[in-house]
């Protein structure tokens, strides 16, 4: 915590809201995590992690960072202050993405190579269950009330619904080709799912598990093949969904009432994921091919700066601070 407090001290002159915010970005090709200081928008430090890090998220108190090191077949638990590995969690083969349940300790991990979801108790470090799902599970999300977990299977093209009480898959919903990411709305009534190859986002009614809206995207001058929705993040007020559109190098801002696209925001190349900073004024994107992070101003829906990170940045998570603790641990596309 000492390092953390020093950082706090150094940023006292910055606006209060940005104080000591740290954004952690996984660099898939460098096997590192870059830590961006949101006060200065500079990379404060970079530390090594396991091989091919993708999804990352924080414990609710911000004191432990979980990283999916896909090619190391491990979920690593890291001290964010020092970057030191505390221990590995049993994760099953090829963990790709995960989601932390609201209880703060149950981790749902998508195992891309063997068509399962592994459920792990992060405190006792025990595997609670392995749930059979479709081929290449990737997206993971847990409903805000903690009763449902979902995973998307990229080749089976389904959302699999898992009852968190019984840890059984109870239903499946067909969606567009290659579903990559799932995000519950804050009220838990809707689930947003991106289909990378289908080029669409499905909005699913959670109670009936039926698609209520399919959102398409159109960008002048960009071939539809290149518009490939991946990461999704919802604004704090719930009114806007930000959808990363992959090799079109844009993020769509979608009105969650009308499902109309309000803006396409040009960011770096091959944008994977989006994370909203607490307060809702800024969001960041990870841009795989250009190796940078774009900062977007939520009010003007414009990119305001970019920050060079490592090679192939993939996931981003905002570290919860003591002030903001309990407000919302999910901010950061947390489950990327």
């Amino acid at each position: 915590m000492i390092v953390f407090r020093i950082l706090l001290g150094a940023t006292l002159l910055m606006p209060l809201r940005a104080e000591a915010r740290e954004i952690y970005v996984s660099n898939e090709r460098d096997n590192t995590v870059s830590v961006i200081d949101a006060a200065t928008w500079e990379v404060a430090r970079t530390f090594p992690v396991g091989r091919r890090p993708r999804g990352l998220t924080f414990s609710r108190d911000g004191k432990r960072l979980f990283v999916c090191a896909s090619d190391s077949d491990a979920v690593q638990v890291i001290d964010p202050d020092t970057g030191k590995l505390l221990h590995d969690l049993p994760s099953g083969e090829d963990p790709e993405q995960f989601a932390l349940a609201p209880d703060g300790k149950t981790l749902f991990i998508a195992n891309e190579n063997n068509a399962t979801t592994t459920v792990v108790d992060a405190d006792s470090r025990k595997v609670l269950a392995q749930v059979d799902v479709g081929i290449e599970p990737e997206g993971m999300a847990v409903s805000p009330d903690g009763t449902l977990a979902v995973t998307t299977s990229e080749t089976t093209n389904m959302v699999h619904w898992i009852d968190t009480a019984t840890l059984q898959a109870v239903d499946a919903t067909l969606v567009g080709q290659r579903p990559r990411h799932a995000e519950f709305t804050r009220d838990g009534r809707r689930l947003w799912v991106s289909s990378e190859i289908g080029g669409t986002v499905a909005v699913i009614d959670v109670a009936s598990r039926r698609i209520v809206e399919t959102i398409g995207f159109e960008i002048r001058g960009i071939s539809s093949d290149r518009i490939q929705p991946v990461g999704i993040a919802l604004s704090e007020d719930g009114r806007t969904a930000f959808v990363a559109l992959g090799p079109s190098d844009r993020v769509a801002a979608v009105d969650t009432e009308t499902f109309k696209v309000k803006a396409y925001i040009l960011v770096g190349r091959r944008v994977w994921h989006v994370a909203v900073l607490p307060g809702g004024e800024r969001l960041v994107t990870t841009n795989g091919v250009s190796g940078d992070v774009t900062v977007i101003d939520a009010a003007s829906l414009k990119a305001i700066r970019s920050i060079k990170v490592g090679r192939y940045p993939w996931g981003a998570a905002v570290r919860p601070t003591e002030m903001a603790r309990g407000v919302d641990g999910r901010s950061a596309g947390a489950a990327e």
Partner: protein
Amino acid sequence: MSTRADFSDGGRKGSRATRDAFRALVAAGLWLWAGAALAAPAGAPLTIHYLERRIERPTPLNNEPRVPEDEGLRGAELGLRDGNATGRFVGLTFALKPTVVAPGADLLAALAALVRENGGPPRFLVVNAPADDLLAVADAPEAREAVLLNVGAPDTRLRDRDCRARLLHVSPSRDMLTDALVQLLVHKRWGRLLLVSGPGPDDALYAEALRRSARKFGARILAEATFDARGADLRDSALKEFVLLTRGPDHDAVAVADERGEFGGNLVYNTAAPRPVVGTHGLTPAAWGRPVEAWAAVQLQGRFAKLAGRPMGPVDWAGWMAVHAVTEAATQLTSSDPAAIRDRLLSKKFEVGGFKGRALSFRPWNGQLRQPVFVLWPGAVVAAAPVEGFLHRRTELDTLGLDEPESACRAFGGHG
């Protein structure tokens, strides 16, 4: 009207089919779905047949590995495995029945035997055979109700004047391959070519495809030569002979048309000028290859290697893709009704992933699967065509191969 036995796994009408159906029903824990009673009893697997004519191939040069005997079939097997892993969530099961005949054997007799054993004509038939065999199968009365999926014949004529209404092409055609290569060459401003062709009829077809692609995209073939490797020992002669062969006007690359691999491998680094070799050897266009890893291809490569114990080749990919397309259409419909699946495959709504970074679909004018083509050498993928800058009003994928106005195919009831 089809009968139950059409879709059962090998049994005639009667107790075995019923028992299989019952077992599958119990296993899936599902009840009848709407409309299914018309086509098949619930839980009875939808059978996809795989029909292959083996072909004789020369011993590879330079101790290169042989083309695996089971190339194609292993891909189809993985497609089946993937299809069942998906289908179980909607109560569908699929079966794959392979029939493989030797180079000299009677393919149509094998088809007739397949129909007898199947208890009815096949409805989905993945065919891995040369063009003439493929057409004979397509025109045979036994296949009159089948959707055929071509995974082995690259001949452009099958997508042109020799097309058939029920014949879909999963493998890219020769002209799609050469279009992909020439797009990359033009993009790199390496458009001045020398062309060296082997003596085989397939070499002539490849060379002709290269000429057409060059015309289409503005590359130029400055000079042509032929080379017959028969009787030559390339280990002794390559250093001298190929230098003589590739002397010509100032050029950017040497294109080679040698489909059976009788000399092309030895041409690389043996040219007169320091120029790359492209075509069937050197830098080659292919539906799939070992270095393909982007767009989650590494997942498919991994699953295939686990199943087959070897890398996935282009015909393996096509076999996988053919079965995947059928099972995916069935899953989208949650139905195993063959007529509905066929309509779905050909409908504008149908889109399927194939680990190539784009949604794939069948061209409604000739049944060709739209797809990116990789341009690669054994060490790396250099580009995935369509290459940036080659535009098309419908989709850039249609810059590869015969476009609607160019195709003489009328069997799909399209233009004309």
